[in-house]
């Protein structure tokens, strides 16, 4: 069984948009990930499963009695993939928004997906079902690929809990729309609710275009 990083899909999207440098960079990151120890372990563990169960794992369903090591390998790859995305200015841009959360309600036509820090969204139930995530408590992610100002393709994919502490989780100060960068505390909000003071300009500067 061949297993590829989902970053290849991101690279293909970037190539479709005509952003060759970013597509090549992400494809290289995918190749690097696929040649790493996490993928080697996943391949070995999948090869030990019956074909049908291995297919299920790739589709986001861990079979009953799956070894803990398999869940660990998936988490390790998810963490590494997340780090690559967070470190890449294109993959962390608003055009590549990922909304990941836990299903809080299941209705006839939709499920309610809630992020840990508050925001929520409705997801058509058929989309959640296609990702094998339609029970309360299931983890689901929506990956949006912005096409233009009013259009996006949204893909529902199964999510898993990573739960790395912030000291271990990758962080870059350059991530665009990165939740860690943009989320503020109640104390921050009280500070920012004051009136901003005029900006201080030490030297007169004219900026040429």
């Amino acid at each position: 069984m061949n297993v590829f990083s989902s970053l290849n899909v991101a690279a293909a999207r970037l190539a479709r948009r005509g952003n060759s440098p970013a597509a090549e960079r992400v494809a290289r990151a995918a190749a690097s990930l696929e040649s790493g120890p996490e993928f080697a372990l996943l391949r070995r563990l999948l090869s030990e499963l019956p074909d049908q169960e291995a297919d299920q794992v790739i589709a986001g369903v861990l079979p009953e009695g799956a070894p803990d090591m398999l869940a660990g390998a998936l988490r390790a790859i998810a963490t590494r993939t997340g780090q690559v995305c967070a470190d890449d200015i294109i993959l962390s841009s608003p055009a590549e928004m990922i909304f990941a959360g836990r299903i809080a309600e299941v209705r006839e036509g939709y499920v309610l997906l809630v992020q840990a820090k508050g925001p929520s969204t409705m997801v058509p139930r058929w989309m959640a079902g296609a990702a094998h995530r339609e029970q309360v408590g299931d983890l689901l992610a929506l990956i949006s690929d912005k096409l233009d100002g009013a259009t996006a393709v949204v893909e529902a994919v199964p999510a898993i809990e990573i739960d790395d502490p912030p000291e271990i989780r990758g962080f870059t100060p350059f991530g665009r729309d990165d939740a860690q960068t943009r989320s503020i505390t109640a104390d921050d909000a009280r500070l920012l609710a004051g009136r901003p003071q005029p900006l201080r300009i030490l030297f007169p500067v004219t900026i040429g275009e």
Partner: protein
Amino acid sequence: MTGESWRIRAGSPNDRELLTSFACADPAVRWQIEVEQFIQAQLLEWAFEPLAAEGDPRLLLAFTATGELLGVAAHERAILQAADRSQFHATKLEVIAVGLKWQGQQLPTGERPSDILMSAVMTDVSARVPPRDARVFAIVHEDNHRSIALCRRHGLSEEMSRPHPSYRRIVTPHRVR
């Protein structure tokens, strides 16, 4: 363009070669390498990615009178969000970096390159149309004492929560309403 010994201009997609050769990091310091790599490999895309244009990203380049790249700065519009969903519009100082040769140096006219770059950022933020909120924040590695001092000199004096244990988030001051 300004100054006898330096000039500032906005970056353009044609500046790739200039940026890929820009060096500002001590190879032994990880957070400095992170900045250099971002400038060399990603800053141009950050600035000119069409789908990110709504954030009004701005890339500024400072040159000596002889055309040598002194330093790089960039900023864009950002929204900070609290858990209660209240939002605050701001400008994120994305990066500011002085070339290795010019770090700790003064120009013949006495200015520090970092002060010129920061003044350019503040001037540019003030001049954007539609106007930005007068609120600028930066995320700085806690060991980057030079940048923290630079931010202080230019008014980024209020400490906010840290987005990561190793990084400080500092913002321009606010007066209690």
